[in-house]
């Protein structure tokens, strides 16, 4: 589905990713863990086209996508949810979803229904300015927006960062429901979340992939995974 092969990325002269290779198979939920500055966000931004790799290839459904713009990659079916929980704050919740419907060519009613199914509280929030939502609601709106166009792959950067545990449970539930229907590449530092959802885990350190964990027993033991953070 998504194959990243020996990708290097630099900001000016500072190389941030070194020979990063990984893959996400159809329906898989793959997590990337690592300390701050390990290059996790850079990796997602490179896949979604906001950054260009200096070297290496990224293939999506057997087609090379490295170097394509973010718009083209999104249209191909890869959606990115950024870390900063930055919704279109001047627009209402409905308009945020309308934007996603417009971009994907989907009917607005379908997208609204899908969003309400994902998070029923949206039904009463449609006319609220998205800028007034809580951090958790913003994250859920961003995920709903990304899912509006029925993407094949979602890239989500730290979905639970800075959120209260009750909201984390909501997001966890939402991601659990997505399992199998969409492929996910998720950057996450909350290992309790990783252990409950991950099919595979890549560990990043200083721009390198230093480990790939595939053993379900090892993934479910999040206390042991703490050594990687």
């Amino acid at each position, binding site marked *: 589905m998504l194959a990243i092969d020996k990708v290097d990325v630099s900001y000016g002269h500072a190389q941030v990713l070194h020979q990063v290779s990984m893959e996400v198979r159809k329906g898989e939920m793959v997590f990337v863990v690592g300390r701050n500055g390990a290059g996790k966000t850079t990796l997602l931004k490179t896949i979604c086209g*906001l950054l260009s790799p200096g070297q290496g290839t990224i293939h999506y459904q057997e087609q090379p996508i490295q170097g394509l713009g973010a718009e083209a990659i*999104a249209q191909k079916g890869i*959606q990115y949810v*950024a870390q900063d929980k*930055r919704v279109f*704050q001047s627009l209402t919740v409905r308009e945020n979803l309308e934007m996603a419907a417009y*971009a*994907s060519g989907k009917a607005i009613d379908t997208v609204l229904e899908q969003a309400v199914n994902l998070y029923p509280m949206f039904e009463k929030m449609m006319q609220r300015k998205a800028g007034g939502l809580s951090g958790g609601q913003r994250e859920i709106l961003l995920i709903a*927006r990304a899912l509006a*166009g029925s993407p094949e792959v979602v890239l989500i950067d730290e979905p639970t960062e800075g959120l209260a545990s009750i909201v984390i449970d909501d997001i966890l539930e939402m991601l659990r429901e997505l399992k199998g229907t969409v492929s996910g590449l998720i950057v996450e530092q909350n290992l309790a979340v990783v252990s409950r959802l991950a099919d595979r885990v890549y560990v990043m350190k200083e721009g390198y992939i230093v480990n790939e964990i595939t053993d379900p027993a090892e993934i479910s033991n999040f206390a042991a995974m703490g050594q990687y953070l």
Partner: protein
Amino acid sequence: MMDTILFGLTIGAILYLISIGLSLTFGTMKVINFAHGLVYALGVYFYISLLPRLGSFLPAVILSVALVIPVSYLIERLVVRRLYGQSIDYAIIATYAVLLIGTDAIKIVYGAVPYPLSAPIRGSFSFLGASLPIYRTLIVAAAVLVFLGLTLFFKKSMVGKVVTAALDDQEGVRCLGLRVEKYFSIIFMIGSGLAALGGILYAPISAAHPYMGFYILLMAFAVVIVGGMGNMKGTFIAAFALGLLISITGRIYSQAAEVMVFVAMALVLLFRPIEDSSH
């Protein structure tokens, strides 16, 4: 006093029509566009050419603004679009070059001598004991209508919503699969058309000359800074506030009238950080 206020509102209306395009261009594209002064002047010169042929004010205005649109499209497509994401210095240099080249082109075609125009609608009406010129009142009304129209456009149309979203989070819009440049281009042309309209409406109460865009551009930048870059409501309020500041200061001490605009701008720069996407 009423005539001073109306004069201030007229200046404010013109400043608004010119500034809104600049403000949106900066808010969306992060490009400081000096070529905006050129489309302002160009609209006036198109009007000068068309008025005798068409013989009527309104058709000449509409056609002049319409002629500015393709010119602004070329400026956006060939110059400004290449500057997205580049250092702001490049944008200043490149668009200033466009302004200089365009101004010289106007001089070649029309000459450098100021061209006087008369107000298309003469007469005045009485309000609170003052005699107010109808034409100036109509300029103010036109600016208010443009503001309401733009507000509606940004709230109701998909293009407007995409641009509003891009003012909040441009990467977010791109990651949904929308090519923001296409929408910015539309906004650029609307802004240019409004600048041309401002120039045409103002020319009969000032005068047309090739360098008219340079002078007004400085005032327009002051409005954009005071109102907040990319802030549509702020630009509207700032334009009228500064217009009134000019006229009231001018009544007290005429030499200081325009200086006060830049004093206000300096105060804003000192006491408020510049926001690039506030509403």
